[in-house]
């Protein structure tokens, strides 16, 4: 009702993809949409980003896989996933049936060839393909590509050729010494957008058993704890590139999301917050709308990159 009185334009564009609002799920925190759709109508999201998939099913890492840390959590799921085939046959049809908003697949391979094959198979099947080169939890591939500028450029360039119909998003690693460089490299190789940040490699030890609280020793840190780091990286990346930036890392409220948008994000993803409240993405959306009402902002576009930082 409020929206009819005070019409706000929440729409944003990522490449050729129109999102009715800037809120996405973060890959790996919303499964394939099945569980969340029991809690809310996932069609209310701007886009749905699904759990990362690989060519073959992966069983993932041994437990314990998660542990809580101050204002954050470490995970080492190790990309447990059903593999491309089951994804296309079972998971994708379900989420498409349940929603009418863009679906973004998140892919991870051990080699450039695997990424390319995944990209080819998904091209046109989903609205967006997010290339995950920043997973701290798998041995081969993953982060290796995200931290080696040469390998990164080559991978993005190669996969670009295989994505003709979908929007191509490259998910950057927060481990990069200079995030702007990687964002720029992705843009140069033709990516339609970059997303960041993935989790930050981290560790916790149980002092009673003297064992790591994550079986794999090192996992990835997510949640509010990393928000200030993520925001800084989004700011740096957004200033470096012209393509849209999708921001994520510790977003739990509408205020957090507005911070990311002001820092330069065109859209934002909600991850760990979903674990605290399955409907967190919608609460974030409502928070953005409330902010826009209070501040008389007519369209999200007005906010993107709107932080006043010139005068320092």
């Amino acid at each position, binding site marked *: 009702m409020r929206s009819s009185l005070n019409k706000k334009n929440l729409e944003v564009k990522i490449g050729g993809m129109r999102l009715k609002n800037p809120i996405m799920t973060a890959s790996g925190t919303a499964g394939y949409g099945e569980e969340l759709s029991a809690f809310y109508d996932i069609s209310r999201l701007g886009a749905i980003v699904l759990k990362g998939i690989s060519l073959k099913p992966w069983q993932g890492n041994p*437990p314990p896989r998660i*542990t809580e840390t*101050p204002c954050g959590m470490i995970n080492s799921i190790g990309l447990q996933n059903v593999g491309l085939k089951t994804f296309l046959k079972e998971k994708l049809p379900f989420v498409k049936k349940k929603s009418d908003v863009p679906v973004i697949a998140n892919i991870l391979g051990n080699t450039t060839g695997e990424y390319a094959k995944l990209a080819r198979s998904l091209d046109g099947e989903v609205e967006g393909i997010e290339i995950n080169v920043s997973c701290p939890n798998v041995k081969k591939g993953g982060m290796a590509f995200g931290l080696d500028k040469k390998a990164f450029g080559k991978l993005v360039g190669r996969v670009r050729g295989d994505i003709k119909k979908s929007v191509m998003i490259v998910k950057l690693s927060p481990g990069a010494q200079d995030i702007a460089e990687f964002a720029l490299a992705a843009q140069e190789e033709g990516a339609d957008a970059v997303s960041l940040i993935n989790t930050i490699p981290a560790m916790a030890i149980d002092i009673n058993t003297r064992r790591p609280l994550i079986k794999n020793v090192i996992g990835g840190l997510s949640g509010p704890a990393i928000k200030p780091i993520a925001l800084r990286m989004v700011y740096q990346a957004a200033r470096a590139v012209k393509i849209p930036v999708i921001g994520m890392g510790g977003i739990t409220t509408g205020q957090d999301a507005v911070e990311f948008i002001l820092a330069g994000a065109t859209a934002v993803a909600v991850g760990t917050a*979903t674990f605290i409240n399955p409907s967190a993405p919608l609460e974030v959306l409502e928070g953005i709308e409330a902010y826009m009402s209070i501040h008389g902002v007519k369209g999200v576009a007005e906010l993107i990159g709107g932080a006043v930082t010139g005068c320092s």
Partner: protein
Amino acid sequence: MNTRSLRSASTDTDTIQPAHLFKARVKENIKVSGRFYILKATPETGFFVPAPLPGQFFMLGLDRRKDPLLKRPFCYFRVRDGALEILYRIVGKATFLMRELREGDRVEVLGPLGNPYPLPGWGKHKKPLVVAGGVGIASVFPLLEALKGKAVLFYGGRSRDELVLTDELQGMTSELHLASDDGSAGFKGAVTDVLADYFKDKKKSDFIIYACGPNGMLKAVCGMGLRGYISSEEKMACGIGVCLGCAIKTRSGFKRTCKEGPVFDMDEVVFE
């Protein structure tokens, strides 16, 4: 397969409605003994959708402060006078803070979640036998109620202090066997020893077992050649199946404790 036949005798989990996130007001928060407390909280809506079943659990959040960040899983213990009751043991950050909850405080609850204990098909003449270790008693408490006094309970803990509600349990079971590590109540030693002793002169296939407790206990129970169910504990982030954090090793790969469990067929789980 036998596993399937046991399952099919059970509550059909597919018909369970989705869980809900609700706010509840603390009604009471009382110390039971030692490090055990009972928290009673009334949903602000006044009711539960759907009604919780034995073996299910709730995710409980103290508030929206970010430390602790995640909700914590607690078994459905019981509902009385419209209040959800949780039996909890102080072990760390969140449970320590839970102790400080007072009447009128608000908590946020998600649930009921997970699969309940499949009840034995009543025609099958299997005797239900329940094994609980430590705070595992919370999980089997509503099961004992559902079994209407017919179950034999084996209940172990560290000491008399850590064996709670024994008077009540006496009236809810056909036999109650206690064990404690220090011998301050019941048998001195592991509850699984008492269980092994119990089977010395009995046919295992006449029984159906339900067990909840620490991993060591569950492993021992599963190694005894019995048939039945265990409720397992694994750290959880989401409780609803989206994070894959609560993986537990089974014969058919990793399964989610929160979604495929927490109640698993004893044959399914692989202990390391």
